[in-house]
């Protein structure tokens, strides 16, 4: 009986905690459909889609989503390819200093991007690569590579070497081996790396805020912040709709790939 009650108490506590997490979030949903949106969570008085129409009819908002997509897609694609190339020798060869490279990469993952943004800005400014979607993507690539190489290596370690040896004997070169033997087996790992990189850069604010100064280059993270600065304290409905539209792609991506994500997390967790 006591056990039963205890089990119940913990369930109630859990549901209470979960609702505390959901509660603040509900505002974005309710306000975005409310013609007279306020700052509180409430059922919309006048249900409307006008906020969404207003956000989507603004071409500069479109462009900001396109910019976000260009940055995140370029970055995560590069991250997957480069981390796969880098992880291969780290997983397979017995070179000296392999352990040291792995530890150095781990060390770099512990350094926050925030701490180097001022010199990165100066460097980009002096090299005249400031305000460019490509160089911003490249910087974001470098920023997540160390961590991605680790995850990729962990996935690769699980691929039996014997498969490749057969391929080598058949005369396959490096790229053919990667493409035919490794890629099919570590596809889930590649998805994990891609999704983590994509959602990381999609949600990043500081890097594009510093490196992309012109309005035309601003990704959604920056555009929505500027919207907040100009209209956010008046047009709550539009702010909420914009926020929801901006958050949606990551949520969808996350749910689609939840299986991969969790297995990837366990990987990095067990090999910390």
């Amino acid at each position, binding site marked *: 009986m006591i056990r039963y009650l205890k089990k119940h108490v913990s369930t109630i506590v859990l549901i209470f905690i*979960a609702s505390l997490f959901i509660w*603040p979030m509900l505002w974005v949903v309710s306000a975005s459909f409310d013609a007279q949106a306020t700052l*509180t969570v409430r059922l919309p008085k006048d249900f409307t889609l006008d906020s969404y129409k207003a956000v989507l009819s603004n071409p500069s908002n479109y462009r900001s989503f396109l910019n976000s997509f260009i940055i995140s897609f370029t970055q995560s694609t590069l991250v997957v390819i480069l981390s796969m190339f880098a992880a291969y020798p780290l997983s397979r060869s017995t070179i000296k200093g392999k352990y040291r490279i792995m530890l150095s990469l781990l*060390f770099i993952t512990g350094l926050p991007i925030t701490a180097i943004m001022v010199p990165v800005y100066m460097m980009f400014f002096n090299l005249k690569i400031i305000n460019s979607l490509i160089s911003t993507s490249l910087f974001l690539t470098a920023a997540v590579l160390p961590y991605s190489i680790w995850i990729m290596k962990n996935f690769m370690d699980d691929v039996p070497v014997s498969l490749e040896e057969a391929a080598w004997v058949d005369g396959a070169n*490096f790229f053919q081996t990667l493409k035919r033997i490794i890629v099919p087996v570590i596809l889930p790992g590649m998805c994990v790396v891609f999704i983590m990189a994509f959602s990381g850069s999609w949600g990043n604010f500081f890097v594009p805020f510093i490196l992309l100064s012109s309005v035309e280059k601003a990704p959604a993270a920056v555009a929505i912040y500027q919207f*907040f600065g100009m209209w956010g304290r008046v047009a709550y409905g539009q702010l909420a709709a914009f926020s929801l539209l901006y958050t949606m792609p990551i949520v969808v991506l996350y749910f689609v790939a939840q299986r991969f994500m969790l297995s990837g997390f366990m990987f990095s967790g067990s090999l910390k």
Partner: protein
Amino acid sequence: MVIVSLLPALALIGFFYLAPMIISIIYSFTNKTLVGSKSQEFDFVGISNYIFMFKDSRFIVSFINTLVFLIFSAVLGQQILGFIIAFLMQNKSKGLRKFVGTSVLLGWITPEVVVAFIFFAFFSVKGSLNDAIGLFGIGPIAWLFDFAMIAVIVANIWRGSAFSMLMYQAALSNVPDEAKESAMIDGANKFQVIFRIILPIIKGTIVTNTILVTIPTLGLFGVIFALTGGGPGNDTTTMPIYMYKQAFISYQIGYGTAMAIILLLLSILLSIFYIKSFRYEM
């Protein structure tokens, strides 16, 4: 020869990550500014940026704010909440685990600026929190002015607890049931089981997780910047916010980078601990 395939990644990391760090060490010893004559013809000023930092009361404030923010939001807040959720979730039905896990994870995947807007609404004078406490006849309270630090701490706990939850879920699944059961038979209550049995077993995860939640919180910018802008006054100005203000608002690149170096040193220290704990576990 296969090692060549490592080079593109290492080159990119070296160019975009390590080079700026070296540049920043050099700039931190200069009086370089972002605009004006000192932007090109700057002088080496030795360690005066660093000396100035410790005389700069606003820097001291930002340093203390950073510590308060780190300890209450990450080290204690996220970890304790993450542990409680993970602990209570053990042996629960799949449906409940999924519901609770998803609610917590949604905070984790929400982009920084959106987290800031959500809590801007939540803590505003006419926001949801005041609505709720109003039911008990309390308030309304101007949270973002009178309790701004609490607001950013809550926002960071909301955003970051999922990571600790996942880490502790993984760790708790490795605690053998026999250990807990034999302690129960010996008459230990639930709290004794947690403190005497479970926590000692998962202490490796606690060490690693403490470092892993500290690092992103130390560098957190977007949430605080968009929620309070570091205000009111300097109440929520952490080191990254103050660094940004000095370098890009006051154009003091030299001073700003000196601050970045301090931030970097702090994270290097943490990172070394992290690698030590990692080696220990290997």
